[in-house]
């Protein structure tokens, strides 16, 4: 390794302070060309802060950066881009009102770049609709878009903040191979992830952050080290005891009956005659590759989009025609896929974000601040968030915002909970907490529908699993009957669909 003498990027004593929080505390980090460098750590460890500094979005409060041995000041995103640093932020910086193509232009891609973008999208099997408004893309599609944009920029250093958090298994695998390929070409990749498996698969080096400091570095990564890594990240993990699950009750909580929607004129997928019953005390997982109707399904189930009354029942109540607010009163809660800007208002405080959906927090149009503060503290305490209720939501780290959102919806004590990838971006310990909380909800008789591309998440939670493909739903298989082969087939559209699903539902009901 001749280049080892002059590393691509060397970071010395980097500091960033937000009010009382030291987000980055004297971080030293060396990134050599040709390596995949995993950056790990619990939620709030300071990973995204470091990424924002490398992107030129945030100014550090101290420390130095050397690019190929030369000192540099990353004072703007342009500077970073010119040096050859391409970044995917945890919360993507996209203009929702513009099309994909326009967004790429904004990011500095010109016409030949766009062409390359298209060929790459095709080659890696990561389709992105170029002419759709970004607004209409799901979070996972946005992730694909950002990832491809980053690859197209032909950068020397790719900094990826949880790039695989919302990709399905096949996409993730493609992406892993891709990263190795990039490293082989002599580029460097900084990869942030909470999935240890990925780290073991692709990373050459792993650096662990905790409370803003570097607490560990591992160079030879193999399965034996996985536990070490986990311990370094979040401390000792209690072994998760899978609680014995009581069988679901017989009463239906949510019934879809030949639920169909028309596709939007220029985007989206039409849902075709979905029929399925979720019983009380049951968790139904819905798997599938993003863009196969997940967003549409969630919109229809949550009431953002209305249909005919009888095609959707909450317990026995026809509710297809009801809007979001009315369904909430009937006991529906919803964790949307976009946590900033949809599920929460980033510029508002945590307490105000609880007020957004919590019921019983106002009386005669007057906010009850006392109650609100109590409820907010409960949610924060339950999910180990140590911020005061007056913190702006935008000041939380990504994983913390996710915990808050899930916690808020769980605390509504719903009869039916819809959740899009509930453990997106939370660290191992907290993922356990969220899974435990969902199981507890299940034990109380709540029906939970989890829509996710992440199979691990689905396997940890679901009682039955169905696959969504091009707006059609496979039968919901009990977990005992699910195997990878079957799933892969269904996700590629090779499984029996609608008619049989209906048959199953009728048999079950």
């Amino acid at each position, binding site marked *: 390794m001749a280049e080892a003498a002059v590393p691509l990027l060397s970071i010395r004593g980097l*500091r960033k302070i937000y009010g009382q929080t030291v987000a980055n505390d004297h971080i030293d980090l060396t990134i050599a060309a040709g390596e995949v460098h995993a950056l790990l750590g619990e939620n709030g460890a300071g990973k995204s802060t470091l990424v924002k500094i490398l992107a030129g979005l945030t100014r550090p409060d101290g420390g130095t950066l050397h690019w190929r041995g030369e000192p540099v000041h990353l004072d703007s995103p342009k500077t970073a881009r010119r040096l050859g640093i391409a970044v995917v932020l945890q919360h993507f910086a996209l203009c929702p009102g513009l099309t994909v193509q326009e967004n790429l232009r904004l990011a500095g891609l010109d016409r030949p770049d766009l062409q390359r973008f298209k060929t790459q999208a095709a080659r890696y099997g990561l389709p992105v609709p170029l002419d759709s408004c970004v607004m209409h893309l799901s979070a996972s599609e946005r992730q694909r878009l950002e990832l491809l944009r980053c690859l197209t920029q032909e950068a020397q250093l790719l900094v990826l903040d949880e790039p695989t958090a919302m990709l399905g298994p096949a996409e993730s695998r493609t992406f892993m191979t891709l990263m190795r390929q990039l490293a082989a070409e002599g580029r460097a990749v900084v990869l942030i992830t909470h999935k240890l498996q990925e780290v073991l698969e692709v990373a050459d080096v792993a650096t662990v952050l905790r409370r803003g400091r570097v607490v560990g570095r591992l160079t030879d990564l193999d399965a034996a080290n996985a536990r070490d890594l986990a311990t370094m990240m979040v401390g000792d993990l209690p072994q998760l005891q899978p609680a014995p699950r009581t069988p679901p009750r017989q009463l239906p909580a949510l019934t879809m009956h030949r639920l169909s929607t028309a596709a939007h004129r220029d985007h989206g997928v039409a849902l075709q005659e979905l029929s399925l019953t979720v019983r009380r005390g049951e968790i139904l997982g819905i798997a599938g590759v993003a863009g196969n109707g997940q967003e549409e399904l969630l919109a229809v189930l949550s*009431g953002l989009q209305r249909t005919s009354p009888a095609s959707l029942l909450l317990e026995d109540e026809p509710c297809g025609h009801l809007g979001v*607010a*009315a369904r909430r009163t009937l006991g529906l809660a919803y964790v949307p896929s976009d946590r900033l800007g*949809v599920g929460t208002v980033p510029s508002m405080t945590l307490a105000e974000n609880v007020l*957004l959906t919590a019921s019983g927090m106002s009386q005669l149009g007057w906010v009850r601040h006392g109650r609100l503060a109590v409820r907010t503290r409960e949610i924060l305490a339950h999910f180990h968030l140590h911020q005061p209720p007056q913190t702006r939501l935008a000041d939380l780290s990504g994983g913390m915002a996710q915990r808050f959102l899930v916690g808020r919806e769980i605390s509504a004590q719903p009869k039916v909970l819809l959740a899009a990838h509930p453990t997106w971006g939370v660290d191992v310990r907290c993922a356990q907490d969220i899974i435990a909380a969902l199981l507890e909800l299940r034990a109380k008789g709540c029906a939970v529908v989890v829509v996710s591309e992440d199979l691990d998440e689905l396997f940890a939670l679901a009682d039955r699993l169905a696959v969504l493909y091009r707006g059609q739903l496979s039968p919901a298989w009990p977990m005992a009957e699910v195997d990878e082969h079957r799933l892969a087939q269904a996700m590629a559209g090779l499984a029996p669909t609608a008619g049989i699903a209906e048959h199953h539902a009728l048999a079950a009901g």
Partner: protein
Amino acid sequence: MRWLRADTALLSGLAAMVLGALLTALAMKMLAIPAIETIQVFFVDPVADGFGRRQLLITAAPLFLCALGLSVAFRGGVQNIGADGQLMSGAICAGGLALAHPHMGVLLLPACVLAAAAGGMLWAAIAAALRIWCGASELLSSLFLVYVAQLILTALVSGPWREPGGYGMETGPLPDGAMLPVWGGLHAGVWLLAILGMLWWLLERHLVMFFRLRVLGEAPEAARYAGYRSDNLIWAAMLLSGALAGLAGYLQIAGPLGRLNPDLSSGYGFAAIVVVFAGQLGCLGMALTSLLVALLRLGAENAQIAMHLPQSVGLLFQGVFLVSFLLCQRWVPILLERMATMTTRRRTAHGA
């Protein structure tokens, strides 16, 4: 540095005043008008005595009232810039009622107040309906409705409502029962408004509707997700800001003017937009800036009489102050941020 962060709004306000004063001085230099005397005439003479100070409060009152309503709408992303028309519509309704039924006794005043609010709401409702049912931008329609209101007002006071045997285009005086009672040299509207101003922060903190409007303005998708009916919220914002503007119109005719004339709005509905932005949507900020704008208006009148300066000089000063406010709002927080970063850096460097 924490105190800096907490009072950024205050600091940027102060900075704006200083910058505004400097730019005004520069403007005076360029116009070759004597600075000291102009400052005296503009900023000191109008409030030199008790009468002047009361005048200031009376001038500021309708501005502040309009601004309160507009701040609610703007927070929700509802671009109602036609407060001037809503103000005139309120004045027309209340004035028309008072002139047509002068003998209603004690009921006349409350009836007029209701009529003024209803008039303002009616005018705002047109823009709201166009927005919600036809998708027309409320920014444009509310603005155009100002001109419609102005034409109707002018037509009324120069035609059917004109005072028989009167001098100019104006109605006869409003009946005594329709006039606001005067306490301590200030009409009741000023006192009530002072109380409203003090209660306003309570309303802002506690009213669910205000909260929902803020959500709608800051993250419309989140409002949808939470199940808020954006149509209803837009209605509420338009009607509330319209009602307050209509009441401001009533303050004018039942306070300082005592009758209707074509100039009764004096552009207060537009000046209120300036007040809202310069006051950064906050209640105290808006109160202070409406006083400042009122002072500039009185000063301009004074300067016209005492120094024969054209009214446009007053407008120029107003513009200068607005620009300084907007500049400082944008740049003072950024500069403070930079300063904070630099001090931390220096401290880190020393520590190392």
